[in-house]
């Protein structure tokens, strides 16, 4: 299910005095099985961009091609496309509506026309995939904790068996353990089921340790599209885009400025620890 954006522009309220270009000349591809992060300041165009990927928004100019289908083509069936490209919005738990967790998660596959016998199986599988116990099925989703509600909402998208999963800030507002649990489940889904994952995040730490490829968007344009290691080597320009670097990288930057022999970027704390220990030993030998 490859996705390709070519020369994509998107203008909100076109032709009115409030006209605003949200995306300008975007060229971007997502290949099967990739784990891609998207970062950018509020208002940079990230959310507009991800809504292009399942046809919720269509480009003002240029083309978006999902698995060979051009979303702006006449008579294109966007319904099937939306089942294949699952989009989990910010604060997805606000979209829960059913009386039980099971009914909520079953809603997507029911609308897809999945046979009843298979739905129960999909619901169970989706709940297990997000790490929720099956006992929870008959409970009201509204009586669960925030982190559990978020996971029910993600399970509702997974139950449609999407080939691409897009998550817009899946951990906003969750406590540290809730964040870790959701992210490690997403990583497992990616590894075990090979689904393409596109993660929109404000957390530099999260994208640094999770994604293989990082897209940085600013003012509706792509400013970087590279590995996290390459992107986070540009700390000062990231700051001008309203972003930053993971704190592990920030510590190394400060040490480097004081003459320590450390690399520029560390994606995880463990990587920073090893680099600092090495540099410390080196300094002691020289002293």
């Amino acid at each position, binding site marked *: 299910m490859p996705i390709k954006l070519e020369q994509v522009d998107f203008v909100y309220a076109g032709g009115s005095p409030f006209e605003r270009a949200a995306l300008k000349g975007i060229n971007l591809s997502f290949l099967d099985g990739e784990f891609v992060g998207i970062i950018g300041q509020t208002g940079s165009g990230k959310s507009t961009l991800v809504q292009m990927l399942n046809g919720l928004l269509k480009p003002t100019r240029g083309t978006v091609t999902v698995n060979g289908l051009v979303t702006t083509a006449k008579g294109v069936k966007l319904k099937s496309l939306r089942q294949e490209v699952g989009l989990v919005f910010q604060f997805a738990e606000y979209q829960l509506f059913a009386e039980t967790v099971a009914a909520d998660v079953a809603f997507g596959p029911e609308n897809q026309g999945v046979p009843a016998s298979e739905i129960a199986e999909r619901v169970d599988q989706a709940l297990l995939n997000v790490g929720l116990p099956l006992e929870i099925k008959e409970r009201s989703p509204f009586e669960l904790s925030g982190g559990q509600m978020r996971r029910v909402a993600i399970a509702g998208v997974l139950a449609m068996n999407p080939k691409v999963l897009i998550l817009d800030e899946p951990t906003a507002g969750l406590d540290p353990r*809730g964040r870790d649990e959701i992210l490690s489940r997403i990583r497992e889904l990616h590894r075990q089921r090979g689904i393409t994952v596109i993660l929109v995040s404000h957390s530099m730490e999260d994208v640094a340790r999770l994604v293989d490829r990082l897209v940085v968007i600013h003012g509706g344009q792509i400013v970087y599209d590279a590995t996290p290691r390459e992107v986070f080597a540009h700390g000062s320009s990231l700051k001008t885009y309203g972003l930053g670097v993971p704190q592990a990288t920030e510590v190394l930057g400060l040490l480097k400025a004081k003459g320590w022999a450390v690399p520029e970027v560390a994606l995880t704390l463990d990587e920073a620890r090893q680099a600092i220990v090495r540099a410390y030993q080196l300094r002691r030998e020289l002293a």
Partner: protein
Amino acid sequence: MDILDIADLHHIYRGHEGETIALAGVDLVVSEGEFVAVIGRNGSGKSTLAKHFNAILLPGGGRVLVAGLDTREEALLWSVRQMVGMVFQHPDNQIVATVVEEDVAFGPENLGVPTAEIIERVDASLRQVNMEDYRTHAPHLLSGGQKQRVAIAGILAMRPRLIVLDEATAMLDPIGRSEVMSTILRLNREEGMTAVLITHHMDEAVKANRVVVIDQGQVVLSGTPAEVFSQYKLLEALGLDVPVAAKLSILLAESGLPLPAHILTAEQLVDELCRLN
């Protein structure tokens, strides 16, 4: 003077699936001029507690005094509400007007403040959050951090004694978060505004004078950031975390670097590392 004096506060929610005990005997005092961070996992009772600060919720047991006023006394409700301003998570849900200055004026207008004074308060409040250049802008075109600063200005215009931020940075990007944090820090340090910050971000909690940890409806830990975040095993068991620099310091100490305890920020860590040689 204690702005908040909470003793043995209980709160029970009654829902379809029976009762949930949200607060089970909280004792907490916040003095004038303090900056207190409250951390705790989702469902620990933090937000319920915050809703008791200005009588959105009333005690099921125990009591809450706001600058000496008991929130259970109905006649005092508006005085209590006026003294405690709250900023919530969603910037869009707390903006009511179509122009920034009108939004900031909404609170004092409802308090019946005379027009001349409203204008003065709006000016002062926008200056306090560094948004005076945006007074005639439309709020929906502002960034998340700017919207939250307008929300803070709207509260300042009511001249509260305490400002409470309930996960007010959760939806913001890194710049937006740092704008809101530096605004609150400046209000607290330079103008003596008492503030309570409820957050999931340990790197924000570090900036407070005092950190209070809530779990299962009770205060389980309270102290300076250095004291609280040295208890990283306990915090981890509670589903919480320590600031990134603190965690890295702990890892480095485990690798044999003779670092002192209580390192909380990247700058402190770098200073201590440079001091080792």
